[in-house]
């Protein structure tokens, strides 16, 4: 295994790095190994996870002074992660059994935050990751989740913090009956740049997945959503879908949505779609006719649009945390 910085720099022809290059998201010069402060974890036990051949994961692994493990057995946990200093990073391993939930809030005012999450799911796990780092920060997040036999993962991300964010989320459905419901909601304003890459791999057959990403972009903000759905050879009976929707709230806002499919099995269902549009005028008229001002109507439409990315999340506690996080963020935007 090659460790950073021996791993070759990635090409921008690779869809993962097309929009936010390694050079752009790196906290210093790419050949440097900067000193990093540890992310402060509200709980968890000391742990070690392996290095990776992938450049971003290996980089975070190489500079991170801390790695924690959370073990869940039929329980719900709130985990707060706080970054501080110029550069801050850490690793996290989540292991779950039975019916469990975890809400991970990432906050802090580091110039740059790197977070690597690995997860192993047996049973049913519902996860909310809420990015609410300060508006001048950059965030690099790399996830690897494995979903075991007859197990399900609800993986919801609310991305409202930071100035430049890159998330590389990978989920492997590794045994028959494993299921993923992935929802991502991103809200951009000012010059925020939010880049999500999601890879879902159906390693074996009779596995199911859905990915919904909703991004609303205001001012001169930008959202990028790239998906890669891989259905491996022999994974017959897989059922997968991915949908990307963008809501453009200003003329300067930009949103890219690029779903991708790599299907090597014969008997599968694999659907994908993408759409970008401004706020629907009929929705505005309808809400205005109920007494809501134009701003109130527009705000409610954005709130609903973003929450709709989580329509497959069934766990009420996780949904409540996501809704609270979103409402706080929208209130802060209005009140400045």
């Amino acid at each position, binding site marked *: 295994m090659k460790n950073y910085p021996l791993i070759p720099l990635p090409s921008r022809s690779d869809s993962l790095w097309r929009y936010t290059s390694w050079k752009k998201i790196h906290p210093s010069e790419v050949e440097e190994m900067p000193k990093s402060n540890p992310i402060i974890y509200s709980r968890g036990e000391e742990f070690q996870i392996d290095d990776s051949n992938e450049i971003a994961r290996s980089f975070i692994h190489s500079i991170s002074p801390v790695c924690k493990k959370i073990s869940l057995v039929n329980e719900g946990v709130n985990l707060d992660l706080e970054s501080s200093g110029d550069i801050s990073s850490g690793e996290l391993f989540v292991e779950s059994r039975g019916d469990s939930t975890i809400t991970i809030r990432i906050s802090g005012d580091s110039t740059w935050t790197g977070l690597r999450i690995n997860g192993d799911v047996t049973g049913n796990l519902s996860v909310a990751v809420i990015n609410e780092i300060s508006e001048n920060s950059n965030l690099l997040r790399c996830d690897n989740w494995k979903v075991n036999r007859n197990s399900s993962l609800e993986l919801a991300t609310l991305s409202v913090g930071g100035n430049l964010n890159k998330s590389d989320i990978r989920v492997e459905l590794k045994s028959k009956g494993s299921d993923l419901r992935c929802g991502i909601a991103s809200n951009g304003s000012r010059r925020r740049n939010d880049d999500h890459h999601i890879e879902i791999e159906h390693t074996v057959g009779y596995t199911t997945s859905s990915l919904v990403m909703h991004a609303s972009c205001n001012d001169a903000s930008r959202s990028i959503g790239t998906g890669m759905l891989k259905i491996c050879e022999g994974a017959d009976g897989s059922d997968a879908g991915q949908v990307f929707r963008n809501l453009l709230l200003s003329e300067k806002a930009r949103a890219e949505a690029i779903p991708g499919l790599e299907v090597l099995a014969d008997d599968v269902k694999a659907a994908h779609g993408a759409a970008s549009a401004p706020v629907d005028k009929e929705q505005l*008229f*309808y809400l*205005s006719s109920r007494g809501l001002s*134009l701003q109130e109507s527009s705000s409610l439409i954005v709130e609903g649009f973003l*929450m*709709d990315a989580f329509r497959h999340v069934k766990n009420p506690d996780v949904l409540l945390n996501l809704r609270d996080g979103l409402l706080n963020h929208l209130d802060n935007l209005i009140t400045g």
Partner: protein
Amino acid sequence: MGGELLSVNDLHVSVEGKEIIKGLSLTIKTGEIHAIMGRNGSGKSTLANVIMGHPAFEVTSGSVEFNGTPVEELEVFERARAGMFMSFQYPSTIPGVQVGTFLRKSVSAVRGEDGPNAREFRKELKSHMKSLNMDKSFLSRYVNDGFSGGEKKRLEILQMLLLNPTLALLDETDSGLDIDALRVVADGINSITSTAGCLLITHYQRLLDHVKPDFVHVMIDGKIVKTGGADLAGHLEARGYDWLEA
């Protein structure tokens, strides 16, 4: 009957350069129920949308006054807060917004400081939902998302009851309703007519069997060509519209 609530005077309306309403006048007083009937495309829904303030329609001449105020001076939400309500033929879907949240925000916006507190709101809501045979599970669903035609119309009437308007514009509220649902919706309409004026847009006599109009107007090609009492709807049901064009 009460004072003049809505006054439409020689109204002309265009959309994308095409004239839809071609000189229409109508006055509604508090407590009156006016029914407008007519073929598809005669301009009925356009009239309701213009009164409510839909931005796609351009008033090229004439006027609409609500309680003596020209409505052109009011934004859509200001018309709603002034007591105007429109039940939509095709209500918009608002994904991600729960019905309960939407109703609370709407009631708060329209009824303001005179509106119910949280406890009173829940009580009112429960009472109206019971009268409309609506299950409380409605409240956690997203607005009109996946609703059947009948469910959408019930939600429209629920909003009307909660917002307690002085003028209700009901655009084909009877379409998509089975007989039982029609009766429930009609009861809802009847419950507000003592304190409100009502403009019912409909194709069919059947709603008017339950909600008795004071006036029935027939619209053809953007104009009211005939006005009569409740019995006019029966004539239209039996004879159609051709005899009015002769």
